């Protein structure tokens, strides 16, 4: 007997406690009985009243739920030219559970239909990562003859069938591939990211460009049907059906004509062209060359072809427009110049003398101008028009690296442009703080100077350059660049246009400062001394622009630069930014030709071609001026 228990219990109302407990247990028993009755009622409902219904569902015939994948939305350019479509395709599928001897079946099929070893390898791989009870594809794109040949022999192959599906096809091949992207088979690593239920039955998903970024919109919602099948897995009848909701069609801002022109103009060069509607942020052309044909990727590109692409020194898989990082070179000068005016570091009246080089006080090192003889007395206008380096060395020193950093940040340098396709890089807009953090080094005065002419640490993407140019031309109002123009429910005609998104506007200190810089950019093209004067010839509208040449490697002091001797890969990058028409800017263009040497001779003509084409196709954009 435990004394502790009794002692404590003595002071308690023993009788009452037992009585209360007994009552509670009685209530519990009552509840238990009620719940058990509920279960029994449910079981009677299922097993007695609905027995016949459930028996038909299970008896001999199997009822299975089959997903009906939605058809993927189509992709059009701004004029309705079809860029991505769905073509009917026949593939040979195997339901492994219904095949007795897989190896024998494969061998027999091989005699009937052309099946490569690579097909079988892929089949075995997919067999391992099979999701749900669908068939596993063995061969894609059967010819009609192959379909017929199999149909005749079908009784010999239980568990094997021809599946009719829609396969993505890009009729223009590599054209605009870096914007449109492509779809590929859903791989095991994709599965955690997907809504398993909605993607049941879907075999492909967007893997790049618009196809990837607008996956949700393009995909649609899955449908399903309850199907009765016999023991061989052949469908006998459909019991009920819920139709899928097709994905939305997409209309891009991209004009395929401009896109083709841009890609053609880059030709065999490596480079990128981005053209933007200044008022809406719509991306009219997004070219990155070289490109590649997305069609082989749809059903799995063969590894030797893939290696060819991924190992190519020209890096065709690389989206230069969004991810290519280049020193902006002299194209940065209008922005720096504006910064100098707006932050009151320079006055318009004051001239700087350019002897062809610049020296930091007390240092021997010569920072050279591109023109060894110098530009003489230079004001901001002349400095932009003739691209005088010494003027900007002086200005950079006056602004300081952090002054330049802060001003350039407003144009989006060093941060992502928030374009609606994934993968863009942020570039680099250097500051003291950045160098301390990233390099653990102090900032050196010389680095400030070369930052002022777009060399040094500064890195931009072609897209950023286009956005910054558009922002400048739009007098500080930055727009979010958009590849997609609108969406369309395939059952309807109307296109739901995506509203242009304004980003934070740059506060204007003095409107005249902006006028001066924009005028100077116009004079780069439209004055006899301008570096891009050649592209003004014959244009019936006014273009403004800025040339740039970005050093790929640095030249030793006093060494003479000779492009002919430099290996092609070490030649300078040619850059050009432009907008037009000057009076009421509509389009901004950024062109980068890798190792193209001179912005004025290589990059500027490409911009002119694009602008010509644009205003020929959209003359209203010009007549709005009058």
């Amino acid at each position, binding site marked *: *007997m*435990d004394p*502790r*228990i009794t002692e*404590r*219990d003595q002071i*308690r*109302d023993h009788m009452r*406690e037992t009585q*209360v*407990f*007994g009552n*509670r*247990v009685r209530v*519990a*028993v009552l509840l*238990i009985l009620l*719940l*058990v009755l*509920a*279960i*029994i009622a*449910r*079981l*009677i409902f*299922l*097993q*007695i009243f*609905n*027995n016949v*219904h*459930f*028996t038909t*569902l*299970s*008896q*001999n015939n*199997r*009822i*299975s*739920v089959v*997903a009906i994948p939605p058809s993927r939305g189509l992709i059009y350019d701004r004029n309705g030219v079809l860029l991505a479509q769905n073509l009917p395709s026949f593939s040979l599928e195997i339901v492994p*559970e219904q095949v007795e001897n897989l190896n024998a079946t494969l061998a027999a099929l091989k005699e009937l239909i052309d099946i490569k070893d690579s097909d079988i390898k892929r089949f075995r791989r997919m067999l391992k990562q099979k999701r*749900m009870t669908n068939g596993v594809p063995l061969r894609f794109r059967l010819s009609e003859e192959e379909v017929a040949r199999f149909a005749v022999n079908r009784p010999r192959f239980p568990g094997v069938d021809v599946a009719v599906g829609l396969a993505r096809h890009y009729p223009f091949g590599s054209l605009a591939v870096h914007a449109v992207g492509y779809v590929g088979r859903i791989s095991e690593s994709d599965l955690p990211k997907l809504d*398993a*239920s909605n993607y*049941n039955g879907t075999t492909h998903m967007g893997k790049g460009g618009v196809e990837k970024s607008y996956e949700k919109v393009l995909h649609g919602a*899955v449908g*399903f049907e*309850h199907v009765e099948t016999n023991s061989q897995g052949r469908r006998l009848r459909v019991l009920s059906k819920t139709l899928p909701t097709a994905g939305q069609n997409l209309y891009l801002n991209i004009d395929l004509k401009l896109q083709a022109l841009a890609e053609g103009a880059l030709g065999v060069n490596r480079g990128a062209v981005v053209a933007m509607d200044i008022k809406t942020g719509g991306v009219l052309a997004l070219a990155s060359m070289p490109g590649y044909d997305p069609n082989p990727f749809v059903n799995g590109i063969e590894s030797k072809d893939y290696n060819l692409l991924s190992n190519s020194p020209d890096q065709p898989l690389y989206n230069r427009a969004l991810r290519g990082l280049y020193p902006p070179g002299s194209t940065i000068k209008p922005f720096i110049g504006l910064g100098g005016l707006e932050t009151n570091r320079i006055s318009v009246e004051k001239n700087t003398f350019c002897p062809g080089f610049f020296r930091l006080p007390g240092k021997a090192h010569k920072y050279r101008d591109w023109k060894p003889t110098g530009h003489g007395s230079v004001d901001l206008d002349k400095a932009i028009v003739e691209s005088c380096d010494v003027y900007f060395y002086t200005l950079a020193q006056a602004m300081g690296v952090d002054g330049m950093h802060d001003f350039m940040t407003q144009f989006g340098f060093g941060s992502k442009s928030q374009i609606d396709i994934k993968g863009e890089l942020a570039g680099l807009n250097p500051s003291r703080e950045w160098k301390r953090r990233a390099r653990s080094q102090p900032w050196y005065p010389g680095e400030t100077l070369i930052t002022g002419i777009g060399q040094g640490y500064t890195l931009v993407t072609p897209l950023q350059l286009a956005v910054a140019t558009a922002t400048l031309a739009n007098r500080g109002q930055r727009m979010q660049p958009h590849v997609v123009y609108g969406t369309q429910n395939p059952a309807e005609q109307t296109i739901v246009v995506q509203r242009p998104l304004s980003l934070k506007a740059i506060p204007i200190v003095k409107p005249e400062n902006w006028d001066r810089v924009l005028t100077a950019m116009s004079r780069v093209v439209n004055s006899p001394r301008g570096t891009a004067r050649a592209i003004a010839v014959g244009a019936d509208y006014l273009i403004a622009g800025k040339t740039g040449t970005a050093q790929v490697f640095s030249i030793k002091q006093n060494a003479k630069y000779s492009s002919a001797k430099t290996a092609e890969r070490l030649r300078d990058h040619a850059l050009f930014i432009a907008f037009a028409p000057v009076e009421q800017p509509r389009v901004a263009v950024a062109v980068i030709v890798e190792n193209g040497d001179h912005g004025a001779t290589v990059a500027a003509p490409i911009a002119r071609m694009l602008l010509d084409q644009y205003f020929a196709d959209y003359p209203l954009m010009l007549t709005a001026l009058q």
Partner: protein
Amino acid sequence: MRWSISQRLHIDLPLLGGLLLLSLMSFVILYSAGGQDNAIIVRQALRLLMAFAVMFAMAQIPVRYFLGWAPWLFGGGLVLLIAVLLVGDISKGAQRWLDFGLVRFQPAETMKIAVPMMIAWYLSTKRLPPNVWHTVIAGLLIAVPVGLIAKQPDLGTALLIASAGVFVLLLSGMSARLISACLILFAVAAPVLWHFLHAYQRQRVLTFFNPANDPLGAGYHIIQSTIAIGSGGMYGKGWLNGTQSYLDFLPERTTDFIFAVYSEEFGLIGVLVLLALYLFIVARGLYIALNAQDTFSRLLGSSLTLTFFVYVFVNIGMVTGLLPVVGVPLPLISYGGTSLVTLMAAFGILMSIQTHRNRLPT
């Protein structure tokens, strides 16, 4: 007064009989559900053997020891739960296991017993029925481990442990006013709790209300199991003849959904037999609690018994589509070991309550 042999071995014969019968049924059903795989039967037999051994061992310990251990067991369990959150193994996306090299251990399991034990210990030192203050303290003692387990996230176990603790409170005579106050509080807090659920948990609750909504995802389980049960009819399709389970349509058919296999093959009659067996065990447990000699034993014994019933009800309710899908096995029938040991430990405690009785002065 003489002790019988079973009394000396500290075995409650009716309870033991009921449990053995259930285990026997488990073998029969598992053999069919597992695709007539002998290995499964052997493994289950070993687990049952171990679980029965644990039960026997627990039955040898007099109740007053449990009374003394309750706070330590509870405190230790809490420490382990926190350890699990910090360093636990992740399996199937949830952090529930502690790895001690050789043994992997799920602290939430011990809490199934430690929580009701703790509440029973706490309340047994107080005057009953408990006042507001004691109810609040007891509520907190329940909420802390439940919250930790829910965070793992293991909502099913958390709810079961919460109910085990709450049963003790209810059985101790908590007043009707307090009960209704708690209900109102819960109704107010429900939307907040909903916010804390994982997306998949919300999905399960939503699917429960309309399984046809998502026939490819979570609804698939319920649709297939109701087909299995419904097609069983009055007498069932016969042992080893359940087509739904044999054709691979039933998911989790050896574990959480084994009841569907049983009802398909043995029909309503078979289910009634199984329910009767469960009810018998519950009745015996409550009988033991009613005849216990002290408050702690009464509260603990009855709470453990009611929790056992909740397991049965939640599992069958889920499989028949009365309740949302929560991963709770069918006690003693489902394949699997961890929860089996805890379950049998609880029965061991019940046997101890029944057999370590103080001799009353004649």
